């Protein structure tokens, strides 16, 4: 199992090599190194999977300790891996999707002069993410946790000469770091409670150290969840993710859809033993998840920017995952994570192909009717969109239905209803996006204000937007093949979770590891399962039909100006943050700067001035006249004499 260390080490080596030497090599060498290391990581993951499969289900867990990393006093944190079904499953998803996106990037970034830097960052991200999922304790996990945040920052701000990109990178880093404060405090609390942060040790001791529903368990679970809301862009810390679309599209696909943002879900599943001791915290997770799901889906409705639609969609789908783990459906959360990784990566890659063809345009109002000119791209997007909408037989259908039925069967009917409504909205916004981009004639969505445009680098077509008669074509094979592979995975991915008799393959694979959710009150019958699935499917189809009626047939016009405005401002959350958080902090900082000068330094300078003033008074005594000094000396002598004589 020690070979598992190679999984993050390969991309790390790619980062070092490309980071130090990439600028001197040719672009091909850079691309080969970058893709090769990730493919190698995927291959090692497969090998490790094979090794695990050879073991009996109960023994498929191995800790690999590299060396003692931090060890002083009562704080011990080795640098170690935990190789078990969960981490290997995640490693496979991450390295697999990552490898596809690396290959896609070769084509997408072909025109960029900083390709070495790009691939170095991307490799560093892969190393961090793989380390995150493989780490054996919370502190080691935090390396990956922050590492992916760093790479996210670096890649969002990849085109750093563009102020919006630079600002978005900083925003992403700061907002997630705010969540990481919770994560850090959670680590501290874990040390206080367990004396260690080793996952297996904590899972074993959770029952004895954490009273059910006690403050320690609830605090620990909520603090860690705060970290997850930052990294996984949940309410209220989701605000950075839409802005993160300033980065190159493959980055959005890999980091801000498929892998990094799911770290929070993974972490909760990893710490599920603790969450089981804190029902209140689990409820919070489920409620935040459901609220995020519907909120972000609604926010995606009025968004004119294709990538930002997908970003809100990601937030919404992550909400589903948190809803899943919040009702104790650990393996279904991971299932949706996996299928989402497939179809959302596919959607982003297809969107990237559109942008690639249109010279970086992302505003859907400037697109239209592209289905005929980009048939392969349109097909890929359609597959992803149908999966996202939850249409049978795509992966998204199975995973979403699993979560919906989990919520229903856990007795959280309200959450189920909210999630179902969100599913309808999901179908609505993705169908709208598909219609605007591929179906409707160009210029349909009234040319809005400019400014929805990705970085200047991928300039394949050399012009911007959809100019009449311009040469618009499907992307080169190096980009088409990864899209095809992901489409295939999206088609087949449902098999991971759905089988004739639940639990599915993934659930059985993870089964020995994950204690069943305590909140699953009753196993539903097969009949109710089918009814639930039918309800979900009906809502999705209704959403698509509604789009068809409104946008294509123009049979319906349900437009309320107020709703439009609220949606266009995404419920004013960002404005609220700007007014309630950013502005006050800025004001306090400025005030503190002035305070430091005026009051604290002023006190010191004032003291100096007072001494100087006293000196100015006393210097009058120094008349410079000899006799005055002599007289003063005489007075002093007289005083001394008097003292001696009368003492």
């Amino acid at each position, binding site marked *: 199992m020690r070979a598992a260390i190679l999984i993050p080490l390969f991309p790390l080596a790619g980062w070092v090599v490309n980071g130090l030497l990439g600028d001197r090599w040719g672009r091909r060498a850079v691309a080969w190194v970058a893709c090769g290391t990730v493919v190698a990581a995927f291959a090692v993951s497969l090998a490790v999977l094979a090794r695990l499969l050879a073991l009996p289900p109960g023994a498929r867990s191995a800790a690999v300790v590299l060396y003692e990393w931090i060890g002083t006093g009562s704080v011990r944190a080795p640098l170690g891996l935990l190789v078990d079904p969960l981490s290997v499953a995640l490693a496979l998803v991450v390295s697999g999707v990552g490898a596809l996106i690396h290959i896609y990037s070769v084509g997408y970034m072909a025109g960029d002069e900083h390709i070495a830097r790009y691939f170095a960052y991307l490799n560093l991200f892969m190393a961090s993410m793989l380390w995150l999922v493989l780490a054996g304790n919370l502190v080691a996990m935090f390396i990956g946790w922050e590492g992916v945040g760093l790479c996210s920052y670096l890649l969002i701000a990849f085109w750093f000469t563009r102020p919006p990109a630079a600002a978005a990178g900083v925003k992403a880093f700061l907002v997630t770091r705010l969540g990481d404060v919770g994560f850090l405090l959670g680590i501290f609390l874990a040390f206080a409670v367990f004396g260690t942060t080793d996952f297996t040790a904590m899972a074993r001791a959770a029952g004895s150290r954490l009273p059910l529903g006690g403050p320690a368990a609830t605090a620990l679970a909520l603090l860690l969840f705060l970290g997850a809301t930052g990294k996984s862009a949940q309410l209220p810390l989701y605000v950075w993710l839409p802005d993160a679309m300033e980065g190159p599209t493959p980055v959005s696909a890999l980091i801000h859809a498929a892998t990094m943002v799911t770290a929070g879900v993974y972490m909760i599943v990893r710490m599920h033993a603790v969450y089981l001791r804190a029902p209140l915290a689990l409820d919070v997770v489920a409620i935040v998840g459901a609220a995020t799901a519907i909120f972000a889906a609604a926010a995606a409705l009025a968004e004119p920017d294709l990538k930002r639609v997908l970003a809100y969609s990601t937030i919404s789908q992550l909400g589903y995952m948190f809803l899943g783990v919040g009702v104790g459906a650990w393996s279904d959360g991971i299932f949706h994570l996996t299928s989402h990784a497939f179809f959302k990566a596919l959607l982003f890659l297809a969107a990237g192909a559109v942008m690639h063809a249109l010279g970086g345009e992302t505003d859907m109002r400037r697109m239209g009717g592209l289905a005929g000119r980009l048939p392969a791209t349109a097909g890929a997007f359609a597959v992803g969109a149908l999966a996202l909408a939850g249409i049978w037989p795509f992966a998204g259908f199975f995973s979403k239905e699993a979560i919906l039925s989990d919520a229903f069967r856990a007795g959280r009917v309200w959450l189920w209803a909210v999630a179902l409504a969100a599913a309808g909205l999901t179908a609505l916004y993705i169908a709208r996006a598909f219609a605007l981009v591929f179906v409707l004639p160009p210029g349909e969505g009234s040319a809005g204000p400019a400014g929805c445009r990705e970085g200047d680098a991928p300039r394949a077509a050399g012009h911007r937007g959809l100019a009449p008669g311009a040469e618009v074509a499907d992307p080169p094979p190096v980009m088409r093949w990864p899209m095809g592979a992901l489409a295939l995975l999206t088609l087949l991915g449902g098999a991971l979770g759905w089988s004739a008799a639940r639990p599915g393959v993934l659930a059985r694979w993870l089964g020995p590891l994950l204690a069943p959710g305590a909140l699953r009150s009753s196993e539903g019958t097969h009949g109710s399962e089918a009814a639930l699935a039918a309800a979900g499917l009906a809502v999705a189809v209704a959403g698509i039909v509604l789009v068809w009626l409104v946008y294509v047939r123009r049979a319906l016009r349900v437009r309320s100006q107020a709703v439009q405005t609220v949606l266009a401002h995404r419920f004013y959350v960002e404005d609220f943050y700007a007014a309630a958080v950013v502005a006050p902090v800025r004001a306090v900082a400025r005030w503190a700067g002035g305070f430091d000068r005026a009051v604290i330094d002023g006190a010191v300078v004032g003291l100096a001035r007072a001494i100087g003033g006293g000196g100015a008074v006393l210097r009058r005594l120094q008349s410079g006249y000899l*006799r005055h000094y002599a007289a003063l000396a005489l*007075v002093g002598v007289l005083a001394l004499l008097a003292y001696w004589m009368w003492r």
Partner: protein
Amino acid sequence: MEAVLFGITAVLALAGGVGVVAARQPVHSALALLLVLLSLAVDYLLLAAQFIAALQVIVYAGAIVVLFVFIIMLLHTRSGEGPRAGAGLPRAGAGVLCGLFGLALLALAAGVRETAPPPAPGFGTIQDVGRALFGRYLLPFEAASALLLIGMVGAVALGKRLRPAGDPSPGRPQAPPAGGPARAR
């Protein structure tokens, strides 16, 4: 005999002291100072300090007063006092201070044991003082010689400053306003 001698010298010394302080011309002060010094030399003899008495005559009366007189002659008429600048101390105040101080000293003096037995033979002779100087006080004695050397060098240095290079005139009776104070600093 001793009492008479002391009475005479005391009166002379006091008169000289008043003369030093009260004389209008510096040269009169110098002569009065000479009178004080010589009177005190006699007192030293009365107090069995032959060597000091000799030194008093040689160094003080012989060297120091001569130096004063020399400088007074050098500075000629301007060695006196100018018109009052107004910066002075009120004379009454100075008088009161000095009076108080003098009374305090006298009170202290009155409290001292009155007499002592005749000193050992040879007390205060040049051999006696010399033995102390080259014995117990050898280090201060050598330091004093160094001090004398430093004084000499200092005087020479101060004297040289009077004639900076490139300035042919030995002195500057009418000091230019710009250069003068700066140089004095």
